[in-house]
Every structure is written in structure tokens, then in C-alpha cells.
């Protein structure tokens, strides 16, 4: 059929001749496509905003922890392991064991529970908070087991009513043993964002201390369940993780036992993203149902059109139009209607997504830009075209199969 352009022209002419009806026919497709586009753009935009906020929190962090098998075999991670990881693996900027305990403290403001996070001075790399006052504890503090601590400004205010607390002591009671921690630094607490909460009501006071300081409370802090490793930007997280596992397995002579497991920040981020993708897909599917309904609308109108234009079909056939010519003409009409509807729907959907994102940005306090992907737009266009052709086939066949005599006889 070399005449496709002619049939497309005919189809356009007929759509133009029935503007009102053509628009109403397109409405279903417009609503369907625009809602799919809007949901996907808002979903992608939210994911992008979430990723950039969460990335702030800790890319390059790799958490290594002992599996149940390692615990049974008592193959704990030792301070020497941590040192080896830090020194021998390229791309590793720091590593700290993670130890922790909790206790209580009583100040002039009342009684508080306290969470003590123990580590080396590398612990300061874990949350990229800025120091507000004083400085972080040092490797000397770690070596000597000094009872010094770093606290956030908001916790300092809770305990003492002020964040000017460097040099003050916190009396901590852990399992009935009490000891004092000298505050050497105050960090600046970040504001909560839409997706990351740094603080919440009733959260225990949290201080960061050298893990060696726990010796004072009666236990030897020299075997750890987990270690936090910080890689630099150039190193691939995957490679570093493999190197860490390899180092640990070599040192503990347990290759192939799967004693040590990795959880990187990227993994958690990927999990979050895949959850968000599932939600977006689900909502898009619901919106896609309206597309199918829109397609049935197109089919209905095309059927009415075939009935109305029976005589025209008869004339065309008497003048030599073949079955395939009529089929092409009506199919082209359905496809044009749906593609036009699709294009209008894409524009409305993008407008809607921008509106929704600015509303969300205003109410959540973080900036969300609609995520507009070329693949979404291309997919939506192809899908609406497909719907036009699919739902246009039945009416077009009905038109094409009319006998010219029958068709001419009708008015």
C-alpha cells in the first residue's frame, strides 16, 4: 500500500470535520496518558530527591558484620582486623569498629537515657556533621582509653540548656557502674529533611566515645560484631567490599565460610528505590486502566462513525477503494485520534507533575523536580498509538467489509 499518506490525509480531514466529537473521543486517552505521565514523573522526582538527600548521609559507607556462623565460631572482628582493613585495602579512607552500650545520666534538667557509640576517631566520618565547638576525640584518646565524648548541640541543650558545654562532664551510669565523660566536641545537628530524620521526640541522648573507654566499665572492648569502613569516591564500593571480606577471611582463615557480610549504603538505597518503583508501577497500572477505558471509548466512537459513514464507505468502494484501503483509512483515523490524545495527555501530565511537585516541595520543605524521562514519553506515545490501532481494528474491519451495494443503499 503506497498510498498510506493519502489515507492519513483523509483521516485528518475527517477528524477536522468533526472537531467536537474528535476531542471528546480523545478525552479518555488524554486523561489516561496524563495520569500515567504524572504519576511516573512525580514518582521519579521523589526518588531523585530522596536519593540526593540520602546520599548526603553516607555514600562510601560499608558496614561489615558477623554472620550467625561467625558468632557461633566466635570469629569476632578484632581491633587488629580493623587496622589491617584500614592499612591494606586501597580506596579505604578509614575504618572503625562499632561498639555501643547504653546507660543513664542525671543532670540539672532531669534523668536521661544515653546511647554510647564506641569507635575510633574514624567514627567522625560516619555522619558528615560539622563540628560546632571543640574537636573530635583523637587517636591518642582511643589508645589511652580516655573517657571523652562528642555530643550534638541539640542533645547538649537537652542536658544542660546550652551547647557551650566543651570541658563539662557527663556522669553516665552503665550497669550500676558510674563514670564521667568529658565533652571535647559539639557537633551541629542537621535539620530533619523530608526523607531523613536525624532526631525525634524522646530519642535518647547520644554521645560518641572511644571504644577503649568501655574498659573502665568492666568489659574488655576488643571483639566486635561489626565494623564500619569508609571508602573514597574513586573506589568502587563493590571492589572494596570484596577486599574487606577477603582480608577478614584471610586473617581468620575461614575462606568460604561466609562469616562476614556486607551491607553498604548503596544496597539500602537500592532497596528504598525498588520499593518506590513498585509503588509507582502500581499507581501507573491503575492509571493505565483508564487508558484501556479510553481505548474502548475510541472504539465506540469509531463504530458510531462507521455506521454514520456507511454511505461514504459505499461511495469509496464503488469508486474502487479496496477492503484494505478502507481499513487503512479507519485505522489511521483511530491511530491519529489516540496519538493526538496521547500528545495532549503528555503535556497535561507534565504540567500536572510540575504542579504536584511544587505543591509537595512547598509542604515538605525540600525541592522535588518532576523526573521526566524520554523513555516514559516515548513509551506513552507508542502505547497510545498501540491502543488506537488495537481498538480501531474492529470498527475498521466492520467498515471495510461492507458490501458497496448495501452501503450505497443506506442513507
Amino acid at each position, binding site marked *: 500500500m503506497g498510498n498510506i499518506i493519502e489515507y492519513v490525509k483523509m483521516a485528518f480531514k475527517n477528524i477536522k470535520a468533526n472537531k467536537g466529537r474528535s476531542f471528546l473521543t480523545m478525552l479518555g486517552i488524554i486523561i489516561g496518558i496524563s495520569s500515567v505521565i504524572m504519576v511516573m514523573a512525580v514518582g521519579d522526582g521523589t526518588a531523585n530527591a530522596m536519593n540526593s538527600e540520602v546520599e548526603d548521609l553516607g555514600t562510601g559507607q560499608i558496614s561489615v558484620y558477623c554472620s550467625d556462623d561467625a558468632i557461633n565460631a566466635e570469629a569476632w572482628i578484632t581491633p587488629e582486623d580493623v587496622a589491617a582493613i584500614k592499612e591494606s585495602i586501597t580506596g579505604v579512607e578509614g575504618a572503625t569498629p562499632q561498639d555501643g552500650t547504653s546507660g543513664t545520666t542525671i543532670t540539672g534538667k532531669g534523668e536521661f537515657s544515653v546511647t554510647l557509640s564506641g569507635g575510633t576517631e574514624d567514627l567522625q566520618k560516619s555522619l558528615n556533621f560539622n563540628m560546632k565547638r571543640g574537636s573530635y576525640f583523637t587517636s591518642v584518646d582511643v589508645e589511652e582509653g580516655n573517657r571523652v565524648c562528642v555530643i550534638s548541640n541539640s542533645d547538649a541543650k537537652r542536658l544542660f540548656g546550652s551547647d557551650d558545654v566543651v570541658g563539662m562532664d557527663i556522669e553516665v551510669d552503665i550497669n550500676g557502674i558510674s563514670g564521667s565523660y568529658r565533652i571535647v566536641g559539639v557537633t551541629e545537628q542537621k535539620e530533619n529533611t523530608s526523607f531523613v530524620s536525624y532526631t525525634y521526640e524522646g530519642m535518647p541522648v547520644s554521645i560518641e566515645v572511644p571504644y577503649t573507654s568501655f574498659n573502665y566499665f568492666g568489659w574488655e572492648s576488643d571483639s566486635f560484631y561489626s565494623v564500619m569502613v569508609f571508602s573514597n569516591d574513586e573506589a568502587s564500593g563493590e571492589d572494596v567490599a570484596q577486599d574487606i571480606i577477603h582480608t577478614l577471611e584471610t586473617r581468620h582463615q575461614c575462606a568460604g565460610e561466609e562469616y562476614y557480610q556486607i551491607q553498604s549504603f548503596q544496597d539500602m538505597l537500592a532497596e528504598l528505590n525498588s520499593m518506590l518503583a513498585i509503588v509507582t508501577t502500581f499507581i501507573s497500572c491503575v492509571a493505565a486502566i483508564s487508558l484501556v477505558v479510553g481505548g474502548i471509548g475510541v472504539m465506540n466512537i469509531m463504530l458510531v462513525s462507521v455506521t454514520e459513514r456507511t454511505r461514504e464507505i459505499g461511495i469509496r468502494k464503488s469508486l474502487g477503494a479496496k*477492503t484494505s484501503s478502507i481499513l487503512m483509512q479507519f485505522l489511521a483515523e483511530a491511530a491519529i485520534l489516540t496519538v493526538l490524545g496521547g500528545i495532549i495527555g503528555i503535556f497535561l501530565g507534565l504540567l500536572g507533575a510540575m504542579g504536584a511537585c511544587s505543591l509537595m516541595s512547598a509542604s515538605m520543605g525540600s525541592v522535588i523536580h518532576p523526573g521526566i524521562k524520554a523513555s516514559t514519553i516515548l513509551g506513552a506515545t507508542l502505547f497510545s498509538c498501540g491502543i488506537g490501532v488495537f481498538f480501531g481494528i474492529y470498527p475498521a474491519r466492520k467498515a471495510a467489509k461492507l458490501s458497496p451495494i448495501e452501503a450505497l443503499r443506506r442513507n
Partner: protein
Amino acid sequence: MDSLISVRDMCKIYNPGENEVRALDHVDLEIKKGEFVAIIGHSGSGKSTLMNMLGCLDVPTSGAYYLSGRDVSALKDNQLSEIRNQEIGFIFQGFNLIANLTALENVELPLIYRGIGRGQRHKLAKEALIQVGLQKRMEHKPSEMSGGQQQRVAIARAIAAQPPVILADEPTGNLDSASTQEIMEILKGLHEAGHSVILITHDNEIAEQAKRVVRILDGKIVEDYVNT
């Protein structure tokens, strides 16, 4: 002269069985190239059925139909479309123009289906419209024209592709007497220019203007004479 249409022992039976209608009953008809023939009959006489057969809009139940020497009595739907497009120019009682197309676009339609390119199509369609005296109405839609003008557009459409047969089915049935005469003059002019014209009518006065008259009654040809 060469034979253009040759119908042999043609029957068309609707509703075969007990209530069968024998619309054409063993019809034989020969029409030569360049003839101007009127087929006349009352409604129900079978003349419309004959016109459908001659126009390749339908196929006979039995018998043979040779159009320009080719047997077209057993062709398939798409082949019939092709024959109609190449061999026959239709002129209908109700004009049968497409309402949302201009006169020029209506005339171009059969040329589109023949696969003629845009430039050549425009040229042929314009020539045909000039031939029927509508050079000033090319861009008008059917609703903006009188009945006579619409029928002239239909004639232009029928002759634009220069088909061997012009088949006019009651072409003056919806027209006043002035327009009727106008259309008849055009048909006569086409005949004089060498076209073969077949005119189907129930009107004796119209039929008398043709060169040859074939009368049909109850599906049979009962009279076939040349006007003097």
C-alpha cells in the same frame, strides 16, 4: 466496433429457496464501444440489479459477463474494486459526493485509489471539472452547490480517470427539468467525444435521448431498439 460489454445468459437470484426472487432471468446483452445505451424499466423490473452487475458492484448467480473481453463474473471483492476503479465511471441518482470534501477532492478520489501521484491527479481532476463547466467551483463543498452542479461534479469524477464505461444510474432523478437537460447534454457530449455511456432510467423521455434503448421487465430484456 469492438465489443465492450458482453452479458451471456446472466441470472441473479436473491434468497435462493422457496421465496427466491429472480431479479435477472437469463439476460443476454451486447454493448459495443462508443455506444450510448439507455436501459429502461419500472422499479422492480431488475434494471438496478443489471446496473449492479454491469458496474461490477455485485456478481451474478450464473452466466458470464465479459467486460473489455475479460470475464468478471466470478471475481473476488478486491478484484472487483480494481475493475470498478479502472473500467467504470459511476454517476448516481443521489450524486454520492462526500460531504466534507471539495469538488476537486471528490473528483480526485478514484485517482487516489488508482495510485496516481498528486500532481497528475490534480491535473486530471481539474481537466474533468473544466470539461463539465465547473472551473469556478473547484474548491466548493457539495453543500455549497446546486443539485445540477453536484451532479456535474459526479460526472467529472466519473470521467476523470478516462474509464471505458460511464454508468449513469438515474442521473437526473433528483434534478429539476433545466438541470436534467443540462446533464443530458453533457452525457450526449461525452458520447460524441467517444465515451461509452450506459444510462439507467425509468423515464421514457430521458431514454429517448439515447441512441439505443433496452427495455427490461421482470428480469428479462423485452425490447432492444435503436432510436432514429
